[in-house]
């Protein structure tokens, strides 16, 4: 292998470390108007009156928009969200008005002069509150909204935005035969994506109606589609450009600021308008990570084999659905974690509350449900008297097992969990999972958790790739994949270099996405770049190779089947000494006599997912993603039994990535996921006061992991190739996060001898849990 398996530097590394990489808001600001948002100060209230007259009087202000200026509702699944609140606000931070002005100072000044009269309404802040008898409805008629897909099921007269069910085997009967049963309630707060780059967008409309949107988005093609549909503009009139994105983590999948920027531009005759959110609004107003409540009941037999599971998940999607219903679906699809459980009932509900609305977050809610299930498995192992890692080995999903949605597992489809567990046992120096005293009042403990994930793309998601050549024989790769730090472009370059038999340094990647020139890719989400765009790249490479062979056959005077392409050369297998360098043949070939032969080579490839289905609504049978990626993770802590403080010593991950394309890049992306997992589990949360106002929407008081607090990250791989994926590689970019919160909580539960059921794991929370336990026993 020339390219696959090599730790080459990221294609964008030099641009980023020398700070010449350009992000959306780095583009020249001359001739651009600025927009600023006024947001709601209530969790739930009627808007009685908005007076914008003083704001309009501020010099430099060009327009002030409110909900009445845009009657259209938005949403990728259920269209329930206005661009600017209309008549009612449903969360504190919801956009209420938008000022467009010459300069941010004027816009900001005007925003403060808008007078809004609210009439507060009762509100609900947790799924339990939202589902209680007589709870106030966040939306009067959730079932009345237009659906853009068929498998979202809002329930009239409730706060339920959608519900998914899994019914497999006979749960009641199986529980009756179990020797050990655990039944616990878990809760996880919403938190934030906190990409380094805050969300930003700019829009302009040409006099003849062409729309140009530049945005920090993971989903440029969704921007084009949603703007086109909402405002009835032919999609071809809309051009969306995405330069580098400074971190997305799912938070830049929703089409949000682009709509506001478009409305802003439209209100000023199409002039260019930029809208960049201050960090505080990026946290409180833009969509966040979902919260979760869960009831998990697991039963095992004498041997520690899990025989039955009953699970209810209540996802806190906040005030609007965005793609949360599909997170509820994804949770149901993978709800057992990678274990074979024959008898399973699962209900996964997406519930409206008056929180900031949620959207996809790295791993699409898998880190949340995995926390609950993997914690419950540890408790079950303790009850059975079995080493928690052994318990997982016993129950590991393997070829022949059925997933919750009754997909038959194979090595290619799901990978090898047993191997991951064995390897992580060695990597983490696992010693049985019990706390070890290292000095007075101080113990060390390890916790283990497994992970798995299958993506949930639309059944017809598509991707594409274009290959062109340069006069030096190097190649340009143009796809619709956004580079946001997940390394997709570099992996694609390596896949292409391998396929063309050339050095990856000779592959130049078009980093920016422009919907006018790059072939459509569904969205840069769900870790699917290597699989979906990778397949399109393979096809484009095949297409280019075919053309090279044609040119070569004509130039060398032999049949195309005899032509070989490797090392940047085209030659006949029979006579390799006689070759033509790429640079002399990629634009067609010219003989010494000047005769032109063949055609310029242009490679193109497209790919559309096949064989996926929706879940059947009753039993939840179906295949929602092309394959799974699984792995095992261990976290080690050193804990003070006196102060309830702790330090995270190490975090280990062994993941079945199918094929290691770039060891260092894969290691760093997985460690990045682990770091996010450590951060959100140990400290991150949106805290709301009694009126439902977020208390920490800023980086002074919202906690996150800093340099210097990082544990030792250990990453290793298992390689069970996925058939049909380029070189067998599996999705891996999100997955490092998934099992970490659970593994950390398992370690801390072992260290403190108290079962931890919620996040974040602050010393105060642990102190309180232990204290309440002690108080109870007194």
């Amino acid at each position: 292998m020339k390219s696959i398996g090599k730790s080459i530097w990221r294609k964008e590394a030099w641009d980023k470390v020398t700070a010449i990489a350009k992000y959306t808001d780095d583009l020249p600001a001359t001739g651009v108007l600025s927009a600023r948002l006024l947001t709601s100060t209530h969790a739930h209230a009627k808007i009685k009156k908005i007076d914008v007259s003083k704001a309009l009087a501020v010099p430099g202000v060009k327009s002030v928009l409110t909900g009445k200026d845009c009657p259209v509702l938005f949403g990728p699944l259920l269209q329930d969200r206005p661009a600017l609140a209309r008549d009612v606000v449903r969360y504190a931070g919801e956009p209420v008005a938008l000022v467009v002005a010459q300069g941010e100072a004027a816009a900001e000044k005007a925003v403060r002069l808008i007078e809004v009269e609210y009439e507060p309404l009762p509100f609900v802040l947790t799924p339990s509150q939202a589902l209680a008898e007589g709870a106030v409805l966040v939306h009067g008629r959730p079932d009345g909204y237009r659906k853009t897909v068929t498998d979202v099921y809002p329930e009239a007269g409730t706060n339920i935005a959608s519900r998914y069910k899994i019914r497999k085997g006979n749960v009641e009967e199986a529980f009756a035969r179990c020797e050990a049963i655990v039944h616990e309630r878990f809760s996880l707060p919403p938190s934030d994506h906190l990409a380094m780059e805050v969300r930003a967008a700019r829009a302009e409309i040409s006099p003849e109606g062409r729309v140009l949107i530049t945005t920090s988005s993971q989903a440029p093609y969704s921007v084009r589609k949603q703007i086109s549909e909402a405002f009835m503009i032919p999609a071809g009139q809309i051009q969306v450009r995405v330069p580098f994105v400074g971190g997305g983590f799912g938070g830049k999948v929703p089409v949000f600021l682009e709509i506001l920027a478009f409305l802003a531009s439209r209100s000023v005759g199409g002039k260019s308008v930029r809208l960049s959110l201050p960090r505080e609004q990026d946290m409180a107003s833009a969509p966040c990570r979902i919260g979760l409540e869960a009831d998990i009941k697991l039963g095992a037999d004498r041997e520690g084999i899990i025989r039955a599971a009953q699970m209810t998940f209540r996802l806190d999607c906040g005030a609007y659905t965005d793609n949360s219903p599909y997170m509820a679906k994804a949770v149901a699809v993978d709800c057992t974690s990678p274990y074979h459980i024959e008898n399973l009932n699962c209900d996964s509900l997406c519930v409206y509350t008056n929180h900031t609305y949620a959207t996809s977050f790295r791993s699409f809610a898998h880190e949340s449900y995995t926390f609950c299930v993997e914690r419950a498995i540890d408790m079950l192992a303790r009850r059975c008297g079995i080493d928690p890692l052994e318990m997982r080995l016993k129950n590991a999903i393997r070829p022949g097992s059925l997933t919750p949605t009754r997909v038959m597992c194979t090595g290619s489809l799901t990978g090898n969990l047993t191997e991951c567990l064995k390897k992580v046992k060695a990597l983490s120096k696992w010693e049985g999972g019990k706390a070890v005293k290292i000095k007075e009042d101080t113990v060390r403990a390890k916790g283990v958790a497994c992970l798995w994930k299958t993506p949930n793309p639309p059944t017809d998601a598509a991707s594409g790739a274009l290959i062109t050549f340069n006069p030096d024989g190097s190649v340009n790769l143009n796809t619709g994949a956004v580079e946001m730090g997940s390394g997709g472009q570099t992996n694609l370059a390596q896949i292409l270099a391998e396929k063309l038999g050339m050095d990856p340094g000779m592959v130049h990647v078009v980093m920016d996405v422009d919907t006018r020139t790059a072939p459509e890719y569904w969205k840069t989400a769900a870790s699917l770049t290597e699989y979906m765009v990778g397949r399109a790249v393979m096809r484009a490479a095949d297409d280019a190779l075919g053309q090279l062979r044609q040119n070569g056959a004509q130039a060398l005077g032999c049949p195309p089947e005899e032509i070989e392409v490797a090392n940047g050369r085209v030659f006949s297998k029979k006579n390799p000494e006689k070759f033509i360098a790429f640079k002399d043949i990629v634009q067609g070939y010219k003989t010494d006599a000047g005769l032109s032969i063949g055609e310029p080579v242009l490679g193109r490839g497209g790919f559309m997912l096949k064989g996926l289905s929706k879940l059947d609504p009753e039993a939840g049978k179906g295949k929602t993603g092309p394959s799974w990626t699984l792995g095992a993770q261990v976290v080690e802590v050193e804990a003070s039994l006196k102060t309830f403080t702790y330090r995270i010593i190490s975090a280990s991950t062994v993941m079945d990535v199918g094929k290691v394309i770039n060891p260092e890049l894969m290691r760093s992306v997985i460690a990045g996921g682990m770091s996010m997992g450590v951060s959100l589990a140990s400290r991150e949360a949106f805290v709301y006061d009694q009126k439902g106002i977020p208390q920490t929407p800023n980086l002074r008081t919202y906690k996150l992991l800093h340099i210097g607090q990082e544990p030792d990250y250990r990453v290793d791989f298992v390689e069970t190739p996925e058939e049909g994926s380029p070189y067998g590689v599996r999705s891996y970019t999100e997955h490092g996060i998934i099992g970490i919160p659970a593994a950390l909580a398992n370690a801390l539960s072992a260290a403190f001898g108290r079962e931890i059921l919620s996040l974040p794991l602050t010393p105060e929370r642990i102190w309180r849990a232990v204290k309440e336990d002690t108080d109870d026993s007194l």
Partner: protein
Amino acid sequence: MIPCDVVYYRPGTLMEAYEAYRLLQIEGKKPLYYAGGSEIITMSRAGSIRPSAIVDIKRIPECMLLSANDEGLHIGSACTLNQIKESRLFPLLGSSCGRIADHTNQCRITLGGNLCGTIIYRETSLPLLLSDARVSLFGSQGMRTVPFQSVFHGRMRLKPSEVVVQIHVPGWALKAPFFHVKHTTNEKIDYPLVSAAALWKDGNMRIAFSGLCSYPFRSSKIEAVLNDWSMPVSARVDKAAELLPEEPYSDVEGSGEYRLFVLKNMLHALLEDYTNGKI
């Protein structure tokens, strides 16, 4: 970016600064003395202040002084936390400065700013409360120098338009045995749940706290209990924890109940370290 219109003054003398501040006030502006600016930025972002004018005191020689002589140490109010820390002239104050914010901000935040800001912790006040420090202030009557304790009650109690010029710390305090510890919710760099500074004079421990209540304080009652060696350590700790000047502070960083728990652990460790000769 904080988009607002601000008038900026950079006077070279105290008199100019005072005059500028006063005139801005007469003009109806809302001026602020400015040195590091970190809190002006923070509070402007939060929307809790909208200064329309700032008077930069970084060019005033008296405010930039940092030197020790026979009388003790003199620190200009515009000295940064990092300058104070790296000078090593007052180890206890250096230690307090070294635990406020991160290095980047320590190079920006000034002693005067930390004492006069609206963020409630003002952790640099603790060593000053313990060391019989004096403070020079410039206002309508020119310069006055008074005991720090007489103008710092939870926060600086300044006369209108007055500016903090210097802090003076007596020589004995620079060499006295000391103890400083800061506990936070979960981070190395964060606001304190409890930050404590202690200084020994003639074998007596003086101690002051930040984070524990809604303002920093030194309590003679707590000092009396902690210095009572006739009582066992745990009894002194429990008694001291009952003598707070107000209910322990509660916010998103931590509940009052938990702050008390942290305080007790901290005092235990402090007294044990002292008993074992580690201080």
